[in-house]
């Protein structure tokens, strides 16, 4: 892997962001709105709940972590969509750039953009709504790591789908986090799901993170194996997504899709 080529993808993304408020605003505006909305909801729940349970670390923390995963995924897909929107595939893929360098550049771009979103969320959640991350302790690191890895896997998978099905397939990719959220057990325990859905939830890394997070908030400590499972699954999905993207790319090179990529040429 040539770091200069990977860096070029990041630099391109930086150029695009620098010159475009329309690209900069969504990096933090939508997640900030989410934090404000859920911040007030959790405050209200704290006043009406008789149990004395603190909803802020359980629910506002969950929103923050889930939005981080979504930002990671969308950081990758939007960097990829820049090439789709500017019809740049022929220019990009006719260069010495390898697939691993290209995807590596998309992931690095996403680290930067999702980092901005995470910082905005942390700032709002802690200063305005008093969310304290000391509640999670050092476990916050594996929580973020597992969600980051799964966000990368979803992003790479989304890019592969759009590469295969054409530019209009981006509308299939935007709602993916919303489709997964009921199964990821962001706001409720796994046991709240019907048994068949629990089986699906157990193969999704975020469900392990959110189960562990709730355990910590309740004053317990999560089973070490739980986070290990979550990490293992996240790594598995990254490998699967990488394999899937490579396979789709090779198909695109065999079929000529890369060279004539447009909404009209793909069905």
């Amino acid at each position: 892997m040539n770091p200069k080529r990977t860096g070029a993808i990041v630099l391109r993304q930086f150029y695009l962001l620098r010159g475009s408020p329309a690209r900069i605003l969504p990096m933090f505006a939508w997640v900030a709105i989410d934090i404000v909305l859920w911040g007030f909801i959790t405050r209200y729940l704290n006043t009406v709940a008789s149990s004395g349970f603190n909803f802020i670390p359980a629910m506002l923390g969950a929103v923050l972590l889930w939005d981080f995963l979504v930002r990671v995924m969308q950081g990758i897909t939007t960097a990829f969509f820049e090439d789709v929107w500017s019809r740049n595939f022929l220019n990009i893929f006719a260069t010495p750039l390898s697939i691993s360098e290209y995807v590596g550049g998309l992931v690095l771009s996403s680290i930067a953009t999702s980092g901005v979103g995470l910082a905005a969320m942390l700032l709002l959640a802690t200063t305005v709504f008093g969310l304290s991350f000391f509640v999670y302790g050092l476990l916050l690191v594996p929580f973020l790591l597992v969600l980051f890895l799964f966000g990368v896997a979803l992003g790479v998978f989304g890019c592969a789908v759009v590469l295969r099905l054409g530019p209009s397939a981006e509308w299939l990719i935007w709602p993916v986090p919303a489709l997964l959220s009921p199964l990821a057990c962001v706001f409720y325990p796994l046991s709240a799901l019907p048994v068949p859905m629990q089986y699906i939830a157990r193969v999704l890394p975020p469900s392990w993170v959110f189960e562990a997070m709730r355990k910590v908030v309740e004053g317990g400590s999560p089973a070490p194996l739980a986070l290990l499972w979550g990490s293992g699954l996240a790594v598995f999905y990254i490998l699967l997504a990488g394999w899937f993207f490579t396979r789709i790319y090779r198909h695109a090179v065999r079929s000529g899709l890369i060279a004539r990529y447009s909404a009209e040429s793909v069905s």
Partner: protein
Amino acid sequence: MSAVLSVTSLRKQYGATVAVDGISFEVRRREIVGLLGPNGAGKTTTINMILGVLAPDSGAVLIDGMDLAAHRSHALERTNFAAVYSPLPGNLTVLQNLRFFGLIYGVADLTARIEAVLTQFDLDKFRHTRCGVLSSGEQTRVSLAKAMLNHPNLLLLDEPTASLDPSVARDIREKIREFTLRGQGGVLWTSHNMNEVEEVCDRVLFLSRGKILLEGNPRQLPAAHGKATLEELFIAVAREPLTLGPE
């Protein structure tokens, strides 16, 4: 002269349609080879296979002696291209595009090289202009500047002067001629402008229905086939390819 491009038995089929049918040819150093033929003859398919964005069903592409299938990145470091149907991203400025592609091609002393191509293609005043707002002729010049950025040994040009006015087109032809005279590079050039091909190309290949029908010096080939001009020969190839097959 050694070959910068060597294509052997290249074949590509889409379903029942054979787009490129086992063609073989070479481009030598300091040579400009015209790849001519009617629409759908297989020119762009051939160029796409040489650029590694389309996998051939069979055959081999060697760039500077390097097998494209086995050493894709190394082979493409020595290559570049400009095509009228593939402008650079319109949401980046000229300078940003050149820096981005310069990094990808691993251009040494990139800042100085960018300045050199900006001057060479008279793009200095557009350096901070987004490519999307440039005229088509200016965009073509940016594409050519990007194509020259890495001093390619093999330059692929798919109708590079199609959107240029005659004066700019002549200027561009001179620059590409200069590229082959001063450097070590070879050029594969497609064009539908037969006057241009006669002026620029050292050798032409006539492609029809995926096969090379004729090959030779563009200034001698028409007479050898009983035609007055290269354009007449082109029309004959397009309309009656069977009467002009290889002897």
